[in-house]
């Protein structure tokens, strides 16, 4: 594969060589790189929010439903808050819930999936049954039921509820991969040479499904961000917290569609879509890197 880094000067070539292999293949993959850059942009916005926003997100600064102007680039909400400031602060709220939830989901999925696949027997039967049941009975409706019974569910309760109900898909995928790795020769060799079970799992099996774990993790983050936005949109979040989902909730509640205040719902929607797109692109990239036949060129 031709690499762009090699065309540069001697220094950048040496830098290129010092990168680990996976980093090089990601930089070489257009889709993955685009996704990472978009995501990095939003992370930067979230980190620098206090510097980027001219005012606190909840402060009333202007007239209600002012269209975008020089003073307020994204206009104002019905309450006269600066939409731009809300967007900038909202990035942190949405990304934080998405990434923490996605990470918790994948930790549960790895633990259950690998245990089921590696231990096998009755343990596997039981864990697989539970995972399959969660796949068909859980999802957004169950999350809504749980969230509706919590008084004022904030971001942290959303993290807990989403994590406990959404690990099944990842567990299923990782279980089947573990099953096929378990019978491979290098695992057999490790077992014969007397490696303890935990070491076989951590040193032999896990590193061989890194790409699968990473893509399941990214899928889980995407799911969490969309689910959070959906929950908050229907009013099952803390309406006083500032996230992209609650901006959409207030836009809908303030009849933004009817009054034509498009600037209150287009920016948060597009931001969620852009983060979603970046995660999808990264996953497509990982797919293409691990299975080069899929790439369209």
């Amino acid at each position, binding site marked *: 594969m031709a690499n762009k880094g090699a065309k540069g000067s001697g220094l950048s070539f040496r830098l290129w060589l010092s990168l680990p292999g996976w980093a090089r293949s990601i930089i070489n993959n257009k889709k993955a790189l685009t996704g990472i850059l978009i995501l990095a942009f939003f992370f930067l916005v979230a980190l620098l929010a206090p510097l980027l926003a001219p005012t606190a997100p909840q402060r009333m600064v202007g007239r209600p439903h002012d269209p975008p102007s020089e003073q307020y680039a994204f206009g104002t909400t019905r309450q006269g808050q600066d939409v731009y400031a809300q967007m900038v602060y909202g990035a942190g709220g949405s990304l934080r819930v998405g990434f923490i939830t996605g990470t918790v989901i994948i930790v549960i999925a790895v633990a259950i999936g690998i245990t089921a696949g590696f231990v096998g027997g009755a343990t596997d039967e039981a864990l697989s049954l539970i995972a399959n049941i969660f796949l068909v009975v859980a999802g957004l409706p169950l999350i809504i039921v749980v969230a509706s019974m919590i008084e004022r569910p904030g971001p942290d309760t959303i993290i807990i509820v989403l994590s406990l109900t959404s690990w099944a898909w990842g567990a299923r995928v990782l279980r089947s991969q573990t099953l096929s790795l378990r019978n491979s020769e290098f695992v057999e060799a490790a077992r014969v040479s007397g490696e303890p079970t935990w070491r076989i799992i951590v040193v032999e099996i896990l590193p061989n499904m890194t790409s699968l774990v990473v893509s399941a993790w990214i899928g889980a983050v995407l799911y969490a961000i969309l689910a959070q936005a*959906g929950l908050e949109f229907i009013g099952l979040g803390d309406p006083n917290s500032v996230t992209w989902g609650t901006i959409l909730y207030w836009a*809908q509640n303030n009849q933004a*569609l009817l009054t034509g205040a498009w600037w209150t719902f287009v920016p948060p929607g597009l931001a969620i879509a852009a983060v979603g797109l970046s995660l999808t692109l990264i996953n497509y990239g990982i797919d293409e890197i691990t299975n080069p*036949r899929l790439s369209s*060129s």
Partner: protein
Amino acid sequence: MTAAIGKPSADKPTDTPGFFAKLLDGLYAIFTSRFLRRRFLFYLIAAFAAITLNFIIPRLMPGDPVQLLFARFQGKLDPRAFEAIKAQFGFVDGPLIEQYLLYLRSIITLDFGPSIMGFPVPVSQVIGGSLRWTLILAGIASVLSFLIGTFLGVLAAWRRGGRIDNVLLPIASVFGAFPYFFVALLAVYIFGFQLDIFPTSHAYDTAIRQDWRSTEFLWSVVYHMILPLFTIILTATGGWMLGMRNNMIGVLSQDYIVMAEAKGLADRRIMLMYAARNAILPSLTAFAMSFGFIIAGLLLTEIVFSYPGMGYTFLLAINARDYPLIQGIYLMITAAVLLANFIADMSYVLLDPRAR
């Protein structure tokens, strides 16, 4: 002359198995499949799990579950009726197992108690009115997006690097990353409020009498359905397309495809009968699993369109904290998802002889 025309058609059924023979074959396969029997058992267990979750969740919440679930009933009811409703949900002074059995009996007889917001209308009646709209919308949307996406995926894989692969697939994938309800918001805003081409709420024109035999009413139903359908298909197609394309690429490198080409079979026949028929199997499994996601997306879409299905009713129930209705809707959605899964399993048996 007439005899000459009549003869070949009379012979036809003996040459190839007729439609009815095939149908009987398929039905026989469905009834005798061990795979389907196992799946059916699994769905029973899953339904049981959903019902049990519904029983456990309020009891796991901090605070008094009776207070949580029925606070809004108090004052609306005389104390004796209130006690009866509590008993229906298993809230009696007895051991947990007794509470559970009481609750099970109500659920199995589809008796979810009265709805709080529509009191004293029973929950089952409120759900019955909205279920049909969601099922129609979800059924058409999931089948259409699956068929369109899968077919485009076949074409994208067949002509690698062609226009469908290089232009349509990326566009569909971009929309796939959009949250359903945001696309719905945009659609309502642009086509409903700004351009005024499509209605912005309801499932039919409320000025027309609801009569399923009148064409005027049916047309109004179709007209109200176009925009919600469009938003779901727009966001759901990309995933199917990419999935099918990647399955096809795997299948196309198999030996039997090379063999079919070597035999000189027509391209179309290889593409559809040899490659696509095998590549679609993983997609079918995914289709069954995705029905839940489609329903979830649909719930939010309905809310944006004020479409009187389960999602919109769900929102009203949440805002009123109408727990009997919330739980009833949850159980009905789960039942619909399980049923859809079972239907997908049956079509799997028909398409893949190995599952028979």
